[in-house]
């Protein structure tokens, strides 16, 4: 993508005096800046959404004062954080205290380098993209330990050590569950992983219900792998119910106890960037990335109709269950279906892979993470380790073997070389 972008820039008269190398450097910088803006905006939006989601789940309204429906609340908070006094404790280590948040932010920021946003739109199309993203995410733990250590505060240190133990433990289920998908597709390149999930096929290969060829519908084992990945990845980005590194009821705020102002904002940025990476990776590996759930024009129309039927059933169910009729979901989907039937262009657009699909899928996963966060209570440290080593790890291992058996049964691989 970088090279294509650079040659595209060189087409223009005003930029043609640039050589190939400066144009490449410029393209790299622009892409990096764009990703950084994405990370910042992502945090702003996600903080607002998270507040609203948490408020609704706790029967509140959330921020309502700043801006319409409180939309500018996070902007106000960001400004407040930027203007706050920058405090460094007297007995903290001055260098490591400053460096730590930057390492965390950097680690979660460079993970985006391999994430494909759209066909051809990937900052660096590397052959080991999946492995790269997983490995870069593990650098975060060094930053956490560094900040926790440098703060010279026992709560920070406890939080950092818990975080390190947690991230290192949960890397194994993450790796094994991703490996299940990699075993099916046979490549680590994220673009190829997505490209292999194109089209519509049978659910679990044999049940004759048309489902997208996403890996979560590929086999029961990969479905299980997706669930394991989501759980383990939630733990790896330190989100509730696995937020024991910063559990405010036990450790004040864990490794970020001593931080304030801009450095604390960096922690926040990286937290939501990590959540976005996990959501995008789930969408890419298990939900088909930028692939549309509909194969073509007919598929789009058929898909919209089945969605309408599903929404109708859901509406009737809701009416029966809670004695209240909500017409908005069914109305929206019905309108979309009618548009898709009347205007083939819209249906074709629906069937076209692109940015909007990965955004929708990532958004769904992020909402799932928020749902987990505001539903489940925090685990204890020993329960956390129990879950990782005694539940997720054996299940992921057996699951991996199950994927191989499934591939053999469906004829994807044969035992005779």
């Amino acid at each position, binding site marked *: 993508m970088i090279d294509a972008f650079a040659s595209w820039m060189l087409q223009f008269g005003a930029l043609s005096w640039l050589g190939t190398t400066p144009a*490449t450097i410029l393209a790299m910088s622009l892409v990096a800046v764009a990703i950084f803006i994405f990370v910042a905006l992502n945090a702003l939006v996600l903080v607002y959404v998270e507040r609203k989601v948490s408020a609704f789940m706790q029967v509140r309204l959330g921020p309502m004062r700043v801006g319409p429906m409180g939309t500018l609340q996070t902007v106000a908070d960001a400004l407040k954080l930027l203007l706050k006094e920058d405090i460094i404790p007297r007995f903290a*280590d001055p260098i490591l205290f400053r460096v730590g948040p930057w390492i965390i932010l950097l680690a979660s920021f460079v993970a985006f380098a391999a994430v494909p946003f759209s066909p051809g739109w990937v900052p660096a199309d590397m052959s080991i993209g999946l492995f790269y993203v997983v490995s870069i995410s593990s*650098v975060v733990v*060094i930053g956490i*330990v560094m900040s926790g250590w440098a703060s010279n505060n026992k709560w920070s240190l406890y939080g950092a050590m818990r975080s390190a133990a947690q991230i290192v433990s949960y*890397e194994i289920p993450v790796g094994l569950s991703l490996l299940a998908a990699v075993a099916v597709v046979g490549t680590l390149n994220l673009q190829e992983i997505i490209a292999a999930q194109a089209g519509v096929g049978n659910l679990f290969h044999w049940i004759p219900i048309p489902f997208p060829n996403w890996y979560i519908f590929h086999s029961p084992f990969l479905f299980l792998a997706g669930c394991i990945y989501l759980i383990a990845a939630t733990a790896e980005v330190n989100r509730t119910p696995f937020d024991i590194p910063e559990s405010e009821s036990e450790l004040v705020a864990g490794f970020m106890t001593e931080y304030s102002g801009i450095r604390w904002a960096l922690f926040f940025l990286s937290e939501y960037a990590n959540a976005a990476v996990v959501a995008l990776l789930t969408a890419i590996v298990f939900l088909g990335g930028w692939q549309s759930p509909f194969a073509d024009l007919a598929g789009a129309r058929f898909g919209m109709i089945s969605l309408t039927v599903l929404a109708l059933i859901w509406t009737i169910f809701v009416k029966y269950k809670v004695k209240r009729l909500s017409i908005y979901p069914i109305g929206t989907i019905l309108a979309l279906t009618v548009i898709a039937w009347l205007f083939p262009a819209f249906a074709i657009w629906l069937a076209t892979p692109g940015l909007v699909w990965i955004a929708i899928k990532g958004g769904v996963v992020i909402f799932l993470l928020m749902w987990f966060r505001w539903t489940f209570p925090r685990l204890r440290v020993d329960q956390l380790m129990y879950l990782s080593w005694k539940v997720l790890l054996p299940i992921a291992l057996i699951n991996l073997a199950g994927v191989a058996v499934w591939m053999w049964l469906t004829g994807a691989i044969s035992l005779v070389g």
Partner: protein
Amino acid sequence: MSEVIFWVIWVLVVISAMIVAYSKNLIYSVFSLLATFVGVAAIYIFLNADFIAVTQIVIYVGGILVLLIFGIMLTNRIAVAKINQSSFQTSLGMVVVGAVFVILVITILGQSWPVLAESMDFDSTVGKIGTLLFGDYLILFEVASILLLGALIGAATLARKEL
């Protein structure tokens, strides 16, 4: 441009390794080891070894470095953020290591290495490594896994309070 980046990383690796070797503060040593590992990973990328580079990051940075930090934290009474470490035989060590380094450099520069002319640009080493690992080197792979299992059990047994 790649040339410049390469030498920057080269110098970075050397400086951070020197901090590891010479720093009085153990914490600075272990955290500059992070820079060394990441720099070496970048060097691997210059050597077209993408898989090794990422393995380096995931195992050295995500695993071994965390283990080392845990080792430091568990074996010190932490009242201040700074942990001093002492060295001994520094001058003698300097002499020996200097001699070793000089011998190595003389060997490296004095040798005419059988470098092949055409440059090797793999697209990806992953497939080849996988084929070899599960083909010719399968026994080695299994032995390695048994070794890792043994190390895991051994470390867990040793680290228990009641031995």
